């Protein structure tokens, strides 16, 4: 959309309503765009000219106005449109989602309803990390994600990477549905949250990284258990002074029979 094209649609209205939506990233920045008496980009400056695009297709207006959107932004946009029956009925969700390389179907619709119920701080994090449909799907297992709103707020403050967050969300939902007390699931005062969640979720088979093994090893050897995928492996560290010391210690080590 160009300014030249928009000039034809400039209008002078004061009774317009505002869409309760402000995108976190891109937005058209030349004018306030109005469709059926609702300003679609109200977060922008009030002194910008108002253009009425009600004669154009609403969904295409949105696509042009906001450009590519994250999943979270799309959830918020669809939610904001619901407040205006004219916009809700004019919105072609399939078309909008297709323009954003996504599909609109029953499964997506359920996910959107769940994401909409999450705290803003969580949505900010999910937008920032570009969390996709599969990443956020665990939320659909909850009757209402507001049940874990406190945890999701704490989640947002943890500065988790996308993959850490994806795994943590899955474990949080599991643990909540298994009836684990919220204060146990919450981030611990010491140690990492990820380790805490992993231990809670795998009480029978989990081996924390700090689980060092004595089992009769000599003092210059430290053995630590760690998980790699579906296996628990052992990492051995040998302290030595120089080459001679190392060969002596390795020789002694080869004769050691630890009680594993």
């Amino acid at each position, binding site marked *: 959309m160009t300014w030249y094209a928009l000039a034809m649609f400039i209008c002078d209205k004061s009774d317009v309503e505002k869409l309760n939506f402000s995108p976190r990233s891109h937005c058209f920045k030349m004018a306030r765009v109005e469709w059926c008496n609702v300003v679609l980009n109200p977060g922008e400056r009030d002194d910008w000219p108002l253009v009425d695009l009600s004669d154009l297709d609403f969904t295409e207006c949105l696509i042009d106005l906001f450009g590519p959107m994250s999943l979270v932004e799309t959830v918020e946009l669809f939610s904001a449109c619901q407040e205006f029956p004219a916009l809700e009925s004019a919105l072609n969700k399939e078309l909008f989602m297709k323009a954003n390389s996504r599909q609109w179907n029953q499964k997506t619709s359920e996910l959107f309803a769940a994401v909409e119920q999450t705290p803003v701080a969580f949505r900010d994090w999910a937008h920032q990390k570009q969390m996709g449909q599969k990443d956020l799907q665990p939320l*659909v297992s909850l009757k209402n994600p507001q049940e874990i709103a406190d945890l999701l707020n704490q989640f947002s403050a943890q500065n988790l990477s996308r993959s850490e967050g994806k795994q943590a969300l899955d474990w949080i939902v*599991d643990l909540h549905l298994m009836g684990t007390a919220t204060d146990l699931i919450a981030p611990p005062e010491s140690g990492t949250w990820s380790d805490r969640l992993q231990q809670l979720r795998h009480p029978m*088979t989990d081996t924390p990284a700090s689980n060092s093994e004595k089992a009769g090893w000599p003092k210059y050897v430290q053995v630590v258990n760690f998980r790699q*995928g*579906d296996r628990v492996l052992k990492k051995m560290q040998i302290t030595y002074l120089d080459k001679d010391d190392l060969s002596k210690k390795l020789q002694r080590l080869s004769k050691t029979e630890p009680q594993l």
Partner: protein
Amino acid sequence: MNAHWLQKFDRVLIDEKVKDGETALRFFEVFGDKAEVIQGPPPDIEKGELSAGQFAQSKRQIHVTEFKGQFFKKCPGFHKGMACCNYFVLNLGFQCDMDCSYCYLQSFINSNYLTVYTNIEDAFAELRSMESLHDQPVRIGTGEVIDSLSMDTITLYSRKLIEFFKDYPKWTLEFKTKSDRVDQFLDCDHGGNVIVSWSINPPKVIESEEHGTASFEQRLLAAEKCRDKGYKISFHIDPMIWHPEWKESYGFLVDQISDRFTPRDIPVMSVGALRFQPEQKNMMRERFGMSSLVTQAETFRSADGKLRYDYSLRQQMFDFVLTRFKSNNPAWKIFMCMETPETWVDTFGHTPYHEKPLRELFQPIR
């Protein structure tokens, strides 16, 4: 036919193109008013993945149509790094009317219909054209993406398949099921190359996780009926599911099989442990909550990307079953399904290629 079972289906859509065929006519006969003719695909199929509700719906709606793709395929367990037992699959439908919590179909079904293909003659033509395989010891199963026998009282495909396989004595046909529907083919004159096999678990796991399936006892009774008619039988103790009393449960299962069958009745059995694609977890949790032994399972990502129990726990479970079988009778032959050669070595002390009774199964097809 079991009226209670038929009642669970809400609708049966029959493709206009196949409505006059033998299979479609059977569906009309069985379902009466519930069956309707449609042109083209069902109208309510959406693009993309199914929601949990739509997946549940796919177990209550049937679409009877023809299949335009390739019927005969290599088993999906055939992946680089896995020990492969030369299994091929012949898919005469898609989706299953039973509802196991761990079912892998939950990770890739994209139609809210259980589909039954009517053009079985095209499948036979495809098999006839595989001339290079006619003299190979190929095992072909029909229970990969649909239970081999649960719909068979309507389609009666088992009878046609048994007849067809008489012409291919080197091939083995395997019906894999969790039902007890065998009466419809027991009178067939078979070529001795048909295995009727049951995916089986202890009663506790069946009750908790294998919804809508035949009970443990019903499956063993059906197996006895087949054995008595000269069919080879098999059991796939797969997926083994951990629970606090797993040793008692699986010990009972092994003893029941050992007491009621002999290694002559059962040429080979398989064991496997719970495994699923990570994406499947969401669907299982949405459908079965966290009260299921499967959703509660402590799983970790394994080398092939699937979530599995901890490696040493799997070893313990396999070892327990193998030891129990062998202590009952050393002649039992058991292999592991979808496990790495490394797991084989840790459990058996060697790969399947080194165990004489299994060598033929695992030998690469020329």
